[in-house]
């Protein structure tokens, strides 16, 4: 666990327009110095943020604490310290808040003996909707599950099961939607459909928070992101800013060329390069500007008459990106 503080670009993510939130508008979701620990294991460590209507992505590698944080927001886990409020109300031991909140858990288990329609109807009845059948039909239509609605969920594919869960969470038209890895198991077409649906819901003024460990998913859907790593909030703010931070972080490349030594000499005077290492028998180049370096290297090689055989980034895993954000 690192003690580095989070990179905060905006304290209040706003997803629908990308503009700054009006200062007077109270946040829909407010998380204030929340931690959660199990014995001496810290799952979520002193996290604070606020959400306004729009789509916010909760990005982080597996085990970062995303599900723990979502469960705390959903009132299914008590924070060990700190405070969470949704629409001005506390969520822990306050079932009333679920009338305005929908939750899609990550765990796959659903009542497999129910049909998709019965499962959504179960949610509608438990939400005490006056016209549960109509709301159920609308939710099933929304997630494009009509063809399989009368089949037992036990026969569903992972993607269909996921859509049934989302229909169950949408059936009461909640103001806030919390989704834990919602795109798991969906095929590309279903994924696009779901992204369009969630964007529409956000444009209508709802607050949507979804978790994912896949950067591209978050990029497509969220305007604002919260980056979680090792239980800490590594960064929060607009996706574009954080993406730039991720891209422009220091990179090390292994380069194999027709003349590594001469290429090293050509690179050494460039400002985008801050380290060159030939000691291991191959050329390792460290750069602080990803974009500039990837444009510079082929140009320099061409001008020097050197052939590039291979350029490999050595630290491109998501973990290394998150780790870098936490260290900043």
């Amino acid at each position: 666990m690192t003690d580095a503080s989070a990179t905060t670009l905006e304290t209040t993510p706003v997803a629908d327009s990308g503009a700054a939130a009006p200062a007077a508008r109270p946040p829909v979701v407010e998380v204030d110095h929340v931690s959660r620990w199990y014995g001496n294991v810290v799952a979520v460590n002193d996290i604070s943020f606020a959400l306004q209507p729009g789509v916010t992505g909760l990005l982080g590698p597996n085990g970062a604490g995303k599900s723990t944080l979502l469960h705390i927001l959903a009132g299914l886990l008590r924070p060990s310290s700190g405070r969470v409020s949704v629409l001005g109300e506390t969520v822990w031991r306050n079932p009333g808040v679920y009338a305005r909140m929908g939750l899609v858990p990550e765990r796959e288990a659903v009542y497999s003996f129910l049909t998709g329609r019965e499962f959504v109807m179960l949610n509608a009845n438990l939400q005490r909707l006056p016209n549960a059948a109509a709301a159920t039909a609308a939710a099933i239509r929304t997630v494009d599950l009509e063809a399989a609605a009368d089949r037992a969920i036990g026969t569903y594919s992972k993607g269909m099961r996921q859509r049934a869960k989302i229909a169950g969470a949408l059936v009461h038209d909640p103001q806030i939607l919390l989704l834990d890895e919602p795109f798991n198991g969906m095929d590309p077409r279903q994924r696009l459909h779901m992204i369009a649906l969630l964007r529409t819901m956000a444009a209508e003024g709802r607050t949507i928070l979804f978790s994912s460990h896949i950067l591209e998913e978050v990029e497509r859907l969220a305007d604002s992101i919260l980056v979680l790593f090792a239980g800490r909030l590594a960064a929060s703010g607009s996706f574009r800013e954080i993406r730039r931070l991720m891209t422009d972080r220091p990179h090390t490349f292994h380069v194999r060329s027709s003349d590594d030594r001469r290429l090293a000499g050509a690179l050494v005077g460039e400002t985008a390069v801050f380290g060159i290492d030939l000691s291991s028998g191959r050329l390792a180049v460290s750069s602080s500007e990803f974009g500039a370096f990837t444009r510079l290297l082929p140009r320099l090689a061409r001008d020097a008459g050197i052939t590039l055989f291979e350029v490999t980034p050595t630290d491109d895993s998501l973990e290394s990106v998150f780790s870098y954000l936490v260290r900043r």
Partner: protein
Amino acid sequence: MTVFATLVEVTLRALLGRRRTLLLVLLAGLPVLVAVLARLGGSSPGGASLFEVMVRTVLPLVALVFGTSALGSELEDGTAVYILAKPNPRWQVILAKAGVAGSLTGGLVVASTLASGILAGGLSSGSLGTAVGFAVAGAVAAFAYVVLFLAASVFTNRALILGLIYTLVWEGALAGILEGTRQFSLREATISLAAALAPAGSGIQGGLDLGGAVALLAVVIAGGLVLAAWRLARWEVRGTD
């Protein structure tokens, strides 16, 4: 459909849809089978001994399975989130689950007790009265056992093991050695209640007086429901990262 009816329906379907339910029906039918075989063999099985088998073995085991799986299975696999993350007080969930599991257990016990009682002793008023006494006591005890095991499943995911320990060790072994433990034995309370309800001269004897038996059953049912509802209101999802 009301919230309560919805909870009852999903619980009923969850419990009846499992293969283990068939095994429980077979278990509950064991005294009936013994009575039938005894009749076919030309002997007359003792009704009281069949009822003892029912109270000592069938009732706690059926209640254990229904009681721990009515809500415990959902808490364990995460499906409980779909009924708990709703704007309803959680005591409703406990009541619905206990009601369904208790009714199923009680139904099996009553049917088996009456059937084996009639097969063993015919329709004479004495043996039928004893069977009815055991059936009524069994029905009440079914709810007590179910509530006890249901409450345990809300507190721990090892409720099945704890229930087995209670049934086999506390009620089985210790009650025979340490007389004081009978004061806290649902089995003794059930037999004592059946003895009080059976006609005079049935020869059935429990370890508690009627007041003690009724008090124990009532305390377990009421206390178990309150404790389970209290705990469920504070329930935290298991197995997160």
